[in-house]
């Protein structure tokens, strides 16, 4: 198996997703299948290849810092944050 149940628990914690025991087996299997499938990328020689993070190369995109019409406070602040400090 390319991925163990412990791996899935660890990744789920990194991703902040609660992972109950009864779901663990299924995710270990499907994620394992996918990881095994993407292993084929290791066959390619990519030593001298530059990575592409964006298909259309753009540099820094800047604009003049001027005020424009935007949301008013009542429209933008429509959520309440939960109490997190006990």
């Amino acid at each position: 198996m390319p991925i163990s149940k412990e791996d899935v628990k660890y990744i789920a914690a990194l991703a902040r997703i609660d992972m109950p025991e009864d779901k663990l087996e299924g995710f270990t299997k499907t994620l394992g299948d996918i990881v095994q499938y993407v292993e084929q990328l290791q066959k390619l020689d990519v030593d001298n290849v530059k990575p592409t993070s964006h298909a259309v190369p753009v540099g820094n995109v800047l604009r003049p810092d001027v005020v424009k019409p935007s949301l008013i406070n009542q429209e933008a602040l429509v959520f309440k944050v939960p109490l997190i400090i006990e």
Partner: protein
Amino acid sequence: MNLHSLTAHALLDLFKSGKASVKEAYEACFNRVKAVDPKVKAYVHMASRQPDYVGEFQIPIAIKDNLCTKGEEITCASRILKGFRPPYDAGVIEKIKKSGGAILGIVNMDEFAFGSSCETSCYGPTFNPWNLKCVPGGSSGGSAASVAADEAVWALGSDTGGSIRQPASFCGIVGLKPTYGRVSRYGLIAFASSLDQIGPLTKDVRDCALLMNIISGYDERDSTSVNEPVPDYTKALVNDVRGLKIGIPKEAFAEGLAPEVRCSVEDALNLLKKLGAVIKEVSLPHTPYAVAAYYIVATAEASSNLARFDGVRYGLRVVPNKVRKNALVDMYEETRAKGFGDEAKRRIMLGTYALSSGYYDAYYLRGQKVRTLIKNDLDEVFKDCDVIMTPTSPTVAFKVGEKVSDPLSMYLSDIYTIPANLAGIPAISFPCGLSQSGLPIGLQLMGKAFDEEMLLRVSYTYEQNTEWHLKKPNL
């Protein structure tokens, strides 16, 4: 006359000559939704307000559930966004409204666009109008099904790895993924930011050009949108392919391609040849690795983009009744566990894994390098070809439930559509046949960056010489 079954350009002609009114067209579509949507289930909800009936292109339109539309509930078909009403319009929605577009409603999709079948939606699946036991494709399955079922004249979708083209193919309509940067992504709820593009799903190629005219163009609120002049795409609708070079990648006709799809694509090829196009066999040696590279790059970006859904700012929040780790982390973990469906969790975890310490070089960096190889393959072929032609999908629409338990087999249905997203180039799908079981078959053309016009010209020529685009499902 059934106004709902007409194309946008046919309706515009009727409006101009006074033979039909915009209101009549809108109501015809609305009634059609009432009549057939209980079977098709394309719509998530109808628009909360009536259109204004002003503007040049007052065409009834369906909007994918990931495009921010002021005042409507927009959820990406996910429980985690339940109740989210964006306080602003996406760039494309502004343009649609300004042009007069009459928004009928919000249509279904795979949760966060993670899927090729519209089955991962928290609202339940949409069904293919050609056969209600089959999927409409995905992720823009609601967009495609609504247009194919005449429940909308045209629709907007988004395409990250084939999410416009594959459902267009499964539903027998036209779908275009524009060049990356051609259409503003401002207000599109992000899946994979370096791959996502918004595009049209329409009943024919002329409508595709018309809708592209409306939605294309630079938007300073999307720093990746490209400031290139937008042509009048209807000028590209020329019935002539003489001398154009069409590349046929030999890798596209390897194993896994259904014989009747192959057959229809070869028929299309022969027709275009007869019409004067020059057919050239080409090679894209790295495309067999496209699915693997894509599922690394796309999920890595998705895991980062979806980190914002934490129970604090949007939609669902689960407040745990007892403390496990600490109150904040428990709230995050339980909200995300309850809010995301299994496929969303799988992709977030896969992306997290590819980006995690110790695996970054082996997966994410390598995925980006293979992306370069695929892009180079395409650049090389486009030095001597005007378009590249492949099937849109290796099969026709599959049965509902057939692939849900095997995510990998679902991923492989995107094998022909993914390279265009990785390379950022435009690609179109249009109908080129029907299977023995009566399901539509789609043909894909890929073009050079910002050369949507060439795609429209070739597909328009094909359409003018065939009748596949006129076929309709019996509902």
